[in-house]
């Protein structure tokens, strides 16, 4: 198929970027979106042009590294899908595709479609862990936890930290990401001793990084490739309000 691409090109964080038009022939519908970009880059390199830089790593939908704003939507048109798992069969011959980096006040475009999302890492560093060294996996039944609780904690832990929630939020809020990390540990006995300190530290860090307030539009839940529920945000608010009121 033939595609008309409009790709955000930006030389460095301080430079002004702009959309640049590319016509790409010979795209196959079995290509992943990133393979389509690889294919474009091969053509650009052979023409002695600078390739389009973009983030990618596992290409299996589990690492959270890739993330593009495709045709006005985070990770493109499909629900519950990362950019690397989006395939060209979702587009038609002759389509125009807008490709932009994830944007947010706490994100910075490094070059083209590559985005510095280390602000999210710093939220994790502020408390997204338990301080105890737990050693090897213990005998499963020594810590009483129901199957439902374990599943619920795992649903929260499934967040891959791609930043689609921030990119799609009109407020540039990282509430869904932060909440998933807080809720994951708040739901498990191992996370409870440090729960109050954790939620206060992580929420404070989130604000310091310049992420916006959550106004419950729920766009993040719709665009999340891991389909993380906004119920995590409710849980974070509960944990935060409780920690602040009951010091």
């Amino acid at each position, binding site marked *: 198929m033939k595609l008309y691409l*409009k790709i*955000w090109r930006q030389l460095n964080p301080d430079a002004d970027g702009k*959309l640049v038009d590319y016509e790409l022939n010979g795209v196959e519908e079995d290509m992943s979106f990133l393979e389509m970009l690889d294919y474009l880059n091969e053509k650009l390199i052979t023409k002695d042009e600078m390739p389009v830089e973009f983030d990618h790593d596992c290409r299996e939908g589990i690492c959270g590294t890739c993330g593009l*704003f495709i*045709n*006005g*939507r985070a990770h493109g048109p499909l629900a519950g899908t990362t950019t690397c798992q989006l395939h060209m069969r979702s587009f038609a011959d002759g389509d125009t595709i*807008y490709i*932009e980096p994830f*944007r*947010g*006040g*706490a*994100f910075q475009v490094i070059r083209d479609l590559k985005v510095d999302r280390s602000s999210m890492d710093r939220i994790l560093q502020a408390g997204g862990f338990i301080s105890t060294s737990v050693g090897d996996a213990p005998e499963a039944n020594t810590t009483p936890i129901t199957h439902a609780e374990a599943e619920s904690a795992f649903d929260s832990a499934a967040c891959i930290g791609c930043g689609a929630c921030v990119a*799609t*939020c*009109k*407020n*540039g*809020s990282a509430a869904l990401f932060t909440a998933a990390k807080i809720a994951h540990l708040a739901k498990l006995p191992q996370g409870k001793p440090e729960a109050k300190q954790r939620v206060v530290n992580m929420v404070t860090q989130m604000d310091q990084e*310049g*992420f*916006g*307030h*959550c*106004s*419950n*539009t*729920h*766009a993040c839940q*719709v*665009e999340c490739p891991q389909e993380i529920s*906004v*119920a995590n*945000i*409710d*849980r*974070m*608010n*509960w*944990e*935060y*309000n*409780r920690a602040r009121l009951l010091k």
Partner: protein
Amino acid sequence: MALTGLFLCLFLVVHLAGNLQLLLPKETAVIQFNLYSRILSGNYFIKVISWLLFLSIVLHSIYALIITIKNRKASGSAYAYDRRKVVSSWSSRNMGLLGSIILIFLVIHLKDFWYQYSFGTLPLDDEGNKDLFSIVVSAYGRLWYVILNIVAFMALGYHLLHGFYSAFKTLGVYPSKLSRGLYYLGIGFTLIITTGFIIIPVFVYLNYHT
């Protein structure tokens, strides 16, 4: 936002319940509504509540302004092609606009009724109470004023549709069944409040002026 918003929601219920007395047959409505207004304005407990209401409106508006400015900054530079509106509700994205319409309406509304009642000279009814009923009836004799009210109440409706449910989420109501229950309660609350407030000016216009 959540606490002041929910306090204002509670006020809406009381305000609507009182104002629905305007729908009674004229002879009863005049006596009932004017007596109700006198009791409200004379009660010290209600006076404290009314100052709390003013304070809530001011705090709700100022805090909204502060977080809107902060959120604008936090949203970063604009996308060249933006289809994000398909993944969230219109009301959730336009709370500022809806709130501004409500605030403008509130100023007009307070000037026309509360200010008149508290500081103006009103005629008295047969019982010797200030005749607020006649002021309301004559105000809703103007079609443009009725339409203005309907527009404001529609804005209030959309504001509540998102705000009521969102307030509980901000407070941290997380059990899923309770959360779902509050979502439907919010829709019901919005329908009752909006319909109730719209019926009053429409009824007065049709009943007393046509």
